[in-house]
């Protein structure tokens, strides 16, 4: 049991990471949709999005560290950081590494958003739409518990939640509540014709 505790932690942290990450993605999409109600103000969506994202990092690091230090797996740090360098399940672990590194880029750029500028931050944040599915496929491909009923239920629920959020996001289109006011102001300071 003393050895398998690391292995169980890896599996458990992986499942928790999937749930947290999916929740963070859904909250992120909801914040772009400006969802709100009297009991759920918009700052709650963004604050939860941010804090759960940091919590996700904690569980993701736990998932990776316990997998690497588990003497039974003998993965090595290189396998955890270099995609497709693992002797063990090269493809599926490699996808996990890619997903982790994309998420690391997204989190780090968010922490230094003020220095980076909004446009670059936003472009990198779009990588979430790659990081999340790659992570899900990693779990489906290599998860020890993938075929257990409860893990299937968790994965299905996460995919459904994010899927619905994406459908809502796409169907909402690119509406901008400031578009009219902005166009109005810009027309007053627009001298392109005169130049």
């Amino acid at each position: 049991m003393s050895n398998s505790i690391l292995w169980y932690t890896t599996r458990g942290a992986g499942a928790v990471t999937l749930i947290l990450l999916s929740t963070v993605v859904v909250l992120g999409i909801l914040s772009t949709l400006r969802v709100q109600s009297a009991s759920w103000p918009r700052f709650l969506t963004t604050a939860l999005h941010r804090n759960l994202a940091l919590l996700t990092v904690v569980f993701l690091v736990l998932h990776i560290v316990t997998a690497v230090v588990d003497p039974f797996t003998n993965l090595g740090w290189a396998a955890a950081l270099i995609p497709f360098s693992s002797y063990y399940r090269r493809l599926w672990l490699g996808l996990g590494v890619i997903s982790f590194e994309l998420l690391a880029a997204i989190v780090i750029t968010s922490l230094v958003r003020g220095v980076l500028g909004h446009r670059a931050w936003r472009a990198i944040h779009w990588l979430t739409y790659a990081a999340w599915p790659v992570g899900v496929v990693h779990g489906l491909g290599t998860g020890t518990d993938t075929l257990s009923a409860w893990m299937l239920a968790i994965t299905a629920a996460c995919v459904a939640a994010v899927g619905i959020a994406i459908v809502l996001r796409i169907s909402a289109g690119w509406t901008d509540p400031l578009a009219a006011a902005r166009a109005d102001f810009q027309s007053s300071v627009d001298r392109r014709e005169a130049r």
Partner: protein
Amino acid sequence: MALLGAPDTSSPLPDVDRRLIDAIERFRLVGRGGAGFPVATKWRAVAQRSRGNAVIVVNGAEGEPRSKKDRVLMAARPHLVLDGAFIAARVLRARRIVLYIGERHHAARDAMLRALAQRPEPERALVGVSAAPARYVAGAEAAAVHFLNEGIATPTNMPPYPFERGVGDAPTLVQNVETLAHVASLVRTGTAPSTALITIAGAVARPGVLEVDSQTTIADAVQMGGGLAGPARAVLVGGYFGTWVEASQAWSMSLDPSAMRKRGLGLGCGVIGLLPISRCPVCDTAGIMRYLAAESSAQCGPCFFGLRALADACTRVAERGSNPDDLKRLHRWAAEVRGRGACKHPDGAVLFLSSALTVFADDFAGHRAHDARQSA
């Protein structure tokens, strides 16, 4: 060398190089456009990146409603401003100078163009002229760069900063006209000018532009402006992004940047506005907040919705009388908006509002309904 009042002539400039930046730093020149940013820091950032391709934007947009000092300086001492621009161009190895002058400042633009025509050809060939739209945010550094690149004078996200990627993607110095005159004065005399320009407005006999030194108190400035036109209640120091000060505390205050900084104040754009006791501070504050909200370029929610909500709450207090809900909202929203904008417009507006809520706390708490439009 005085800024105003001295004859404006052009004579060949002494040789200047990068060491001028050290002198600027030693004399602690700060920008006179409003933000008071250290000039040497800005110049060094451009100098480090310039490969002989830098651009100098001479900022005479002066969109601040009560300010007149930039256009008075351009009209009276155009050669001194041009000197500053040409010095910057040499030190920063610039390829181009753009005179960005407010589209309604006709006398200033005409004087600058006349002075430019008297300059020798190699200098003159560097210079282009551009008319800044008459809106509050058009004078912001990023708005000037955006305008010169795209023709639309709205502030943009920073970074990239103008010194990194400005006009035509080249390292760009955007500097207020008075600041450039200070630099020219430093080069011509070997010492920084001991004076600065302010605009005195409101309850004074002769509102207008004054040249003051660091010993001048606000009371002195009022005397120079012909004395009070009536008893004053408070003084707005630094224009619409500035700070209210109780009149009784303002009189003895000297217009010295370092002394002002110690009191948490700044000369800002140099507007000293005197509020007469005949006017209601709550209604005037509401009027200015409505103006600043309307000047939002609507690029981000905190500015467009935040300033509008603040202006509406101020106006409700002004028109219907004080109520605890709106007072609570004003304090909370002012704190929430700060630092959230895509540019600094909302920060300036809530700084102004916060000082009004502090200095006029009793007026805001006990305000009785009267029509805001009469006063504001």
